[in-house]
């Protein structure tokens, strides 16, 4: 054995040369037993070098090395990673904070951040026995350690009461407050941190930045009922404006925060018992600009898939890669069902359902995005792709985006006349249940029975309006709770007194903007990433599964450029929100003086073309257009900072459009 050969006879057994140990031979590693055996035979009394010693030395060395590397890592100058990156990729552009500081910009208007769904941290204030020791630890956000350690307990605590939509008895989970609430979602995964750091460069600090964290699981009005979050926000904005010398606030909502702030603007001016009692000019007095980042004004189709079968593109792709994995019941975890049960107790998911119905999202045979071509993997070079479309040699068939859910690929492509709809709405829900193991998981599917499931599948095609009806049929309890808080229609007459109810306040098509002619509304969002728009479904044949429907992942086109990928039709957007939803209000419905915008508040559209990070070192990139990563987009940050420092829409260059949003908006026939 090499170990022994190398050993010199003169050597003292107690102090073996370090090289033997530091670089242990493969042999001595692989065959420790042999080595020690032969060792014992040959070195009688001479050395007691045994397997255990080698192990100890080995472990010791690993520990020392580890400790040493850790020490080096900690002693490393903070600028080292950046230096390496710059050596490889060439000098990075100055972050906008540094750049604008050189230009002499100074903090002027106080800034309010409103985080979106999912990105805000939640912490435990009171829990069941299984959550002992988690007091004021983050259940949502941070490391998500608890999900792995006690998944069922976690699901139980994150769920709300499925009747009231408020806390279940004995559990209180509350939003984390302060800027820390949503600066990082998980370690290393920034949300607001980059924006905050850049604002700090030009002089912002805690006193003029405020994170309006709220419990994003609740319906918007319930955040006020339970936590007085809206009152808090009002009082904080008033405080910031008065301590900053009367300069109005710039509001920066992200994702669902956009809808939340729409709700707030209505609430704050509504009279006291139901609203904030701020009076009819509160917004004009306190708000300079609302800079919506990736706002799903008109909802997202993803929410339909999320509620219908608890899956979206991410899950669908995973299923296509490893079929059967997600469907089988590993350890009876029934992952998807649990997730579904949890998300269905959250009222807020229903705020994201597509709004405006067929008028906005398209019908059986038309959609505003008609003619959009998907460019597959070439999405980065959008120009070349656009040209192909204009020449009329588009290789792909036009996609019927209006059919948000269709059963089977053929149906999705068939002409409207060929589709035979059998109305599902009247179908009797059977009592026979395919399997009983789902009982312990609360979904409403087991009330539906085979007849109901069949009726749904036979209806074949659902447009935006019908998708809502479908959800009403599939999950009547949940939708009953949800429709008390949200509405998805279009108002005929905005002065109808019924629109003073809180449930309409977060739907831009059923409320008027406040009377604040000097205010500005921006819509900032990314484009150039395929975004879910419509789904191809199939009946779930697996007998073990409790969810009878799933995305038909094998629906594919052979063509690389197809918009259909793994059962999902994609359209332009920021990966989550389609362009139509993010841009339509600012591009058309609020442009100029319309009935939705009676005081003629100025609106601007700022699109940011997605360009993925050039290499891994750049992390999530500084030019990303993805829904969350856009918060690190330098151009977007620069725009926000200029407005915060006192600029207005024309200072930052009016509209900046890459997609076909204006063209598409024109196609929507909506009374303005």
């Amino acid at each position, binding site marked *: 054995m090499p170990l022994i050969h190398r050993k010199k006879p003169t050597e003292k057994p107690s102090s073996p040369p370090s090289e033997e140990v530091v670089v242990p031979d493969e042999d001595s590693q692989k065959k420790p037993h042999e080595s020690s055996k032969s060792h014992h035979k040959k070195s009688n009394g001479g050395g007691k070098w045994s397997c255990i010693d080698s192990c100890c030395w080995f472990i010791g060395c690993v520990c020392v090395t580890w400790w040493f590397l850790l020490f080096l890592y*900690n*002693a490393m100058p*903070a600028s080292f990673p950046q230096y390496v990156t710059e050596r490889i990729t060439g000098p990075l552009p100055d972050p906008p904070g540094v750049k604008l500081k050189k230009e002499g910009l100074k903090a002027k208007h106080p800034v309010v951040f409103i985080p979106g769904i999912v990105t805000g941290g939640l912490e435990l*204030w*009171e829990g069941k026995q299984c959550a002992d020791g988690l*007091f*004021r630890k983050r259940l949502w956000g941070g490391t998500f350690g608890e999900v792995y350690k006690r998944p069922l307990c976690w699901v139980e605590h994150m769920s709300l009461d499925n009747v009231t939509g408020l806390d279940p008895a004995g559990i*209180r989970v*509350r*939003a984390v*407050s*302060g*800027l*820390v609430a949503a600066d990082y979602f998980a370690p290393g995964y920034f949300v607001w941190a980059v924006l905050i*750091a850049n604002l*700090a*460069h030009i002089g912002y*600090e*805690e*006193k003029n930045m405020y994170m309006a964290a709220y419990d994003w699981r609740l319906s918007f009005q319930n955040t006020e009922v339970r*936590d*007085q979050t809206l*009152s*808090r926000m009002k*009082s*904080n904005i*008033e*405080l910031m404006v*008065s*301590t900053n010398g009367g300069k109005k606030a710039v509001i920066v909502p992200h994702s669902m925060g956009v809808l939340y702030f729409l709700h707030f603007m209505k609430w704050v001016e509504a009279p006291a018992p139901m609203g904030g009692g701020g009076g009819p000019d509160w917004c004009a007095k306190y708000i300079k600009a609302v800079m919506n980042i990736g706002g799903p004004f008109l909802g997202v189709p993803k929410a339909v898939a999320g509620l219908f079968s608890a899956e979206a593109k991410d899950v669908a792709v995973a299923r296509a890669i490893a079929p059967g994995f997600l469907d089988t019941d590993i350890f009876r975890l029934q992952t998807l069902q649990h997730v579904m049960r949890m998300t269905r107790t959250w009222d807020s998911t229903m705020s994201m359902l597509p709004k405006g119905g067929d008028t906005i999202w398209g019908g059986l045979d038309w959609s505003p995005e008609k003619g959009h071509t998907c460019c597959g993997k070439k999405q980065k070079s959008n120009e070349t792709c656009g040209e192909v479309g204009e020449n009329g040699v588009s290789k792909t068939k036009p996609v019927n985006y209006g059919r948000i859910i269709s059963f089977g690929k053929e149906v999705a492509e068939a002409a409207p006349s060929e589709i035979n709809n059998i109305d599902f709405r009247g179908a009797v829900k059977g009592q026979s249940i395919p399997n009983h193991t789902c009982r312990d998981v609360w979904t409403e599917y087991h009330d539906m029975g085979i007849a109901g499931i069949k009726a749904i599948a036979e209806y074949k095609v659902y447009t935006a309006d019908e998708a809502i009806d479908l959800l009403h049929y599939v999950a009547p309890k949940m939708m009953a709770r949800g429709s008390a808080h949200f509405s998805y229609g279009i108002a005929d007459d905005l002065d109808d007194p019924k629109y003073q109810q809180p449930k309409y306040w977060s739907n831009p098509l059923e409320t008027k903007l406040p009377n604040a002619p000097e205010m500005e509304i921006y819509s900032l969002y990314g484009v150039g990433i395929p975004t879910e728009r419509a789904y191809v479904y199939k009946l779930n044949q697996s007998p073990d599964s409790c969810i009878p429907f799933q995305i038909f992942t094998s629906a594919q086109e052979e063509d690389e450029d197809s918009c259909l990928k793994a059962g999902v039709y994609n359209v332009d957007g920021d990966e989550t929100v389609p362009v139509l939803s993010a841009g339509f209000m600012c591009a058309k419905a609020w442009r100029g003086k319309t009935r939705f915008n009676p005081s003629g508040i100025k609106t601007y559209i700022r699109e940011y073309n997605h360009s993925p990070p050039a290499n891994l070192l750049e992390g999530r990139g500084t030019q990303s257009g993805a829904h969350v990563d856009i918060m690190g987009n330098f151009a977007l940050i620069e725009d926000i900072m200029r407005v915060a420092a006192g600029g207005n829409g024309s200072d930052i260059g009016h509209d900046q459009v890459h997609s076909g949003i204006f063209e598409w908006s024109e196609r929507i026939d909506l009374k303005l």
Partner: protein
Amino acid sequence: MDCKRKKKERIKERRRWIVTVYFDLNEFSGYHFEVYTCSINCCNLIYRPLCWLEHLSLDSETGLDPPGIRVRAVPGLVAADHFAPCYFAWAVLIENLAKIGYEGKNLHMASYDWRLSFHNTEVRDQSLSRLKSKIELMYATNGYKKVVVVPHSMGAIYFLHFLKWVETPLHDGGGGGGPGWCAKHIKAVVNIGPAFLGVPKAVSNLLSAEGKDIAYARSLAPGLLDSELLKLQTLEHLMRMSHSWDSIVSLLPKGGEAIWGDLDSHAEEGHNCIYSKRKSSQLLLSNLHRQNYSVKPESWVKEPAKYGRIIAFGKRASELPSSQLSTLNIKELSRVDCTSNDSTSCGEFWSEYNEMSRESIVKVAENTAYTATTVLDLLRFIAPKMMRRAEAHFSHGIADDLDDPKYGHYKYWSNPLETKLPYAPEMEMYCLYGVGIPTERSYIYKLATSSNKCKSSIPFTIDGSVNGDDVCLKGGTRFADGDESVPVISAGYMCAKGWRGKTRFNPSGMETFVREYKHKPPGSLLESRGTESGAHVDIMGNVGLIDDVLRIAAGASGQEIGGDRIYSDVMRMSERISIKL
């Protein structure tokens, strides 16, 4: 939980006091800071100590941010619930409040930058306006129930400042809440370990950046701290930093000789040191033995400790009758500035010692003792710039006539002896503090043997070799009863006497209660910091105190939780203090 009936919002005010020792984080307490331009936390204290010091220091002229550095207090409940991992400050209290239904919406941590003078927190960060708006908001969103304010340590005087500020009209630099604001919004102020009348520790801190812990370490390993180990000059650096913080000056003893005793007499007369040591039985026994067997008869009849001499140079000066002390009038001593630059090698410290000549240092130290009044003169002499800056924000005297218009100035607002409490007869003032731990009360100093050529090193040190025969004098420090940081007299006097009944400091006669908690060290290591501790910070985990705070928050009045609860002789001490009430 019987106290689950009513939810009342509460505010937490906070503070602990600051600094002494570089390795002893206890003394550092409270807060993390956020730095925008370069990241700073406790780890960085170890990795880059100089950078850390630079960022935590304030500008020596203005007492505000130095150019290019902005360090801000962390907001929210996380700001001070744990000071270091596993070292709780507010966390236990918050957790217990949560059990009876409190949560983010009715708890508020009023964090502020504790390095600044109180007035400057409003000037720079609008902390007071923020606090006012938060209290008003919580009052309104919780169904118009008044708030309970829980300040800790320096927070107590910060909140005194706030009480005065909030009712002062806007044009006088106040909050414009108008008279009656406090009566309307505040149910009770529950001061935990309040340093109302300051702490002697602040003097030693400013004079030589050390406290008993350092003096102790020095006597154990002489030379270690004095040598320029790795050229770190730890103490000097710390001193430079703490001299740039105005807030330390707010903790200097207030009320002068009337409260803290003059050269010959003091309020704690007759204080029995054995009493204060009874809990640490082990030590006590050995001390008793020493006294019984090895002590000469004279020391039994020696004069009682002279606590009034907060700083004495040499043990003799601390014990001699006052007639034999050299009568140095420090105000007349002219400060001989020497401008020699031979000390440039010592680095670019800002410490005013290097502008002082050796002669004046010696003169200051010659066989003299300083009382609470003259020690301020000493500090003014030694560090004129710092004191000039800080005394624009704080005052340490006793008012003769509280209606004198000069007391409208904000520098008097945090001194309970120079302000009136607001007119709020229904409000309650509580003083909750630990007793039974020897607490620094006065010091014996010596001239530092300046072995090194560096002139900027600190010329005075606590004489760690001075040990008394009883436990009241150890390592150059005399101890009195208290909670390890704040002596009983400072924490309890205002509630026990200064504000009791209708006095000129408390014109509306709001009720005051003194609640003392006897220190009981944790029974075993497993208990870690114990549930019956009386120590300054650990008391926040004391079950008796938490019980009281919860009951008050749930709506109980002072009588309902049992009125006064006293173990020390704070009442007797207070009687001995004669100030006009």
